């Protein structure tokens, strides 16, 4: 379903700009395959190709956007017309404007190779075989596995281009693939589910053997879990949980939230907000991160941005708009899809890893709660007030080892308190799908509520 070069399409739209008008076109095309298996059979096999365009028009200080899930020439024309019309109804803002060559400031995009040609030649049969093998291996991983609720393989070939009437252009493409399984463990009186997944840019990045192991371990070790009495207790966060917490925290560094009076850390730049050894970085130029990218959503080359250095808040992330309005300049942190104007966000957020392995952290924690997974993160945490209260399941830790499993409990604190209360950062930095990497974290004290 090739309709020519994406950058050419974007340029064609940008060239239509009239006097006093700025136009930006963001064009995407993705090819996906997704295999789901169940009970030794392919449950579904999906092959798809998606394309679309988002057109932003700024005229008279007003902004409008229109998008369409098609790159047909007549659809693009109609979309441009709609975007122009919409621009008439926004209110003027002196800081609106597309990225200019001054915003790029001569910066070259980081040299990142995010495309793996070999993934293109993997046959559908091979993809089906991976998923079927995964289901079989997960079922066999432990005698207590009653059922494999799902096993899947997916990959995507994505390409995006941006061009604007101020001469800024960007083009990038990437491959990604992932596999996962969900195991249901049963000990006769209770059921627990656990999942394993891996992701990378090509098949050889995927440690497929870890999936059945992780899914079975995570399900089986929670069998027999019960609520425990509430108290204040040290809490060890699994890397996947750390990832989720950092994801929520990231919006407090969002320049748009700050400008609109909705950031926890407004006015805190230069102040201590975390433990003195804490380093928080968003680095989309790090090829290991699956969110790595050469350009941001405004078309500006990405860069490494330090958010916390030695516990001290460094500043906020900005796109072109928030960078101008705040005077801080863009940090190349615009994020977007075709259906929205650029927002601000992280792409490759991580804590600088410490020196202790997860096992060493377990041994150093005394009596603690190990949190394997959390639920209700988005309803229970508030990046504006900092309130943090989530449902949790995991295991008690005693004498440096896992003890009884627990469920139906909550752990609570505030995001502000948690950053200050971190006592250990694990050495196990794990790059995960999405925009945030995980590692094991020890928080000195949180409130656990239970039975």
């Amino acid at each position, binding site marked *: 379903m090739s309709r020519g070069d994406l950058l050419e399409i974007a340029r064609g739209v940008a060239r239509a700009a009239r006097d006093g008008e700025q136009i930006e076109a963001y064009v995407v095309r993705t090819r996906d395959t997704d295999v789901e298996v169940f009970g030794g*059979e*392919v449950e*579904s*096999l*999906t*092959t*798809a190709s*998606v*394309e*679309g365009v988002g057109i932003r028009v700024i005229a008279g200080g007003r*902004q*409008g*956007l*229109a*998008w*369409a*899930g*098609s790159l047909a020439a007549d*659809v693009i024309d*109609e*979309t441009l017309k*709609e975007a122009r019309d*919409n*621009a008439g*109804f*926004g*209110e003027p803002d002196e800081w609106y404007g597309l990225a200019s060559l001054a915003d790029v400031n001569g910066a070259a995009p980081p040299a990142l190779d995010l495309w793996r040609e070999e993934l293109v030649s993997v046959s559908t049969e091979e993809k089906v075989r991976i998923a079927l093998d995964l289901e079989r291996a997960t079922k066999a991983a432990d005698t207590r596995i009653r*059922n494999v*609720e799902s096993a899947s393989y997916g990959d995507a070939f994505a390409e995006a281009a941006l061009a604007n009437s101020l001469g800024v252009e960007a083009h990038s493409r990437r491959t990604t693939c992932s596999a996962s399984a969900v195991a*249901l463990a049963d000990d006769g009186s*209770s059921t627990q*589910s656990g999942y394993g997944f891996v992701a990378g840019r090509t098949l050889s990045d995927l440690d497929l053997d870890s999936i059945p192991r992780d899914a079975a371990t995570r399900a089986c070790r929670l069998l027999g879990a019960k*609520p425990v009495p*509430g108290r204040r207790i040290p809490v060890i966060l699994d890397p996947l949980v750390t990832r989720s917490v950092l994801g929520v925290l990231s919006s407090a560094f969002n320049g748009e939230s700050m*400008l*609109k*009076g*909705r950031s926890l850390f407004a006015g805190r730049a230069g102040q201590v907000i975390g433990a003195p050894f804490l380093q928080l970085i968003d680095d989309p130029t790090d090829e290991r991160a699956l969110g790595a990218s050469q350009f941001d959503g405004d078309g500006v080359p990405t860069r490494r941005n330090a958010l916390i250095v030695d516990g001290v808040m460094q500043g906020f992330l900005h796109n072109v708009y928030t960078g101008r309005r705040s005077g801080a300049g863009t940090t190349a942190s615009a994020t977007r899809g075709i259906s*929205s104007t650029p927002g601000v966000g992280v792409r490759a957020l991580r804590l600088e890893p410490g020196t202790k392995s997860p096992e060493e952290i377990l041994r150093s924690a005394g009596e603690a709660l190990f949190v394997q997974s959390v639920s*209700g993160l*988005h*309803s*229970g945490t508030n990046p*504006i*007030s900092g*309130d943090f*209260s*989530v*449902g949790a399941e995991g295991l008690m830790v005693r004498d440096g080892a896992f003890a009884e499993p627990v*469920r*139906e*409990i*909550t*752990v*609570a*604190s*505030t995001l502000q308190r948690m950053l200050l209360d971190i006592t250990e950062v694990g050495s196990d930095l794990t790059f995960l799908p999405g925009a945030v990497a995980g590692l094991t974290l020890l928080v000195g004290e949180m*409130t656990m*509520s239970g*039975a």
Partner: protein
Amino acid sequence: MTVPIIERDVLQATLDHALDSGGDFAEVFVEDRRSSSGRFDDGRVEELVSGRDRGAGLRVVRGDTTGFAHTADLSRTGLLHAAEAAAGAARGGGGGTRTVALGAPSAHPIDGDVVLPENVEKRRKVELLARADAAARATGSAVTSVTASYADARRRILVANSDGLLADDDRVRTRLSVHCVATGDTGMQTAHEAPGRTMGFELFDDFTPEDVARRAAQRALTLLEAVPAPSGRLPVVLKRGAGGVLFHEACGHGLEADHIFKDASVFKGQMGRPVASPLVTLVDDGGYAHEWGTLAIDDEGHPARRNVLIEDGVLTDYMWDVVRARNEGRAPSGNGRRESYRHLPMPRMTNTFVLEGATEPDDIIGSVDFGIYCVQLGGGQVDPATGDFVFGVTEAYLIEKGEITRPIRAAQLIGNGPDVLRMVDAVGNDFETWTGMCGKQGQSVPVSSGQPTVLVREMTVGGTAA
């Protein structure tokens, strides 16, 4: 609205082609969706956005395997290509060609009294937002930030399948959301209100932007006065409308046939047995007028219905899509839904309600010595395999000696779906619904939930009070 008319003979040829090399079932799903939205933030209209998305999803089922392909190209060639891709994906079963005979079309045009958003001037949509902003700010000087957004979508679908089914539907949904931040000595508190209905611009006759905004603002102001929530196992009263989402998450998902089929639901094997307090009757009603989850037909072309899932505490049915219903040799229940033509359908809820009981809501509150009264819940999450759930509470109060007293800050409710169903000790004679988006396996669809005031004997409340 220009609608992609796909000729009957093209649909027929596409289905025939899909079954050229064998297969038990083939389906064409065509969708044309237009949407518009606007956002007011920081005291001004930021921008209007319009969107257009159309295409077709082709499905071929052979044995237990479903092949699926989709395309944005609605020409005869585009559809035939997609049919081939879907058939190829389902490859492996027996051969033999079939000819499909499409039956009489069943059309569900839009109601005449719907005010189509596409016929409403954009200026009027923008005005709504400014009115909401002004009303929220006027509610109290501590309201420091207001975001209002407007969204409408008109979705036309067409379904044809190898059983001869041919049906279409045309739906409009409209929604207004207002988020407020209030700032006080205790820091910042946030609140929101977001009514939506399957109707057009006439939504704002029932829900004026001023009323919606004032409710959100008042909630944020109330939270400034809130005390930390208690922790532990406590009686919980869910105000009418507030708790439907809990029943949706904690019970509804476990009653979707795909979870049953995969032995991943606590409700498997419970048909005909008591699974809830006899006070509980749970229905899923896709035909309930104008609700956010209302449909004429589901995304597999079957008419929306009122399905009784739990009657007087006894499990009476699950929710079915075509594939799982075929496996069981029964009729689908009108619950086959998908986010868009790019997605495969699966059993999903529509409008899920706990039906009214006999008790006065005041008597329910009066019966509680110490507990919490939930007025609004945020999002929630459930593991259907275990029934364990968690919910954020976004507006709640302490009940002390039968009286509602102080507001409490953010807390989580955690529990187990089947346990909560059994611990429903009172059901009120009132009723209200709630608007939401339901996510499942990466697909988001509009749903509503609803319930009378309900007393749950005890649930774990995870607050931050020492």
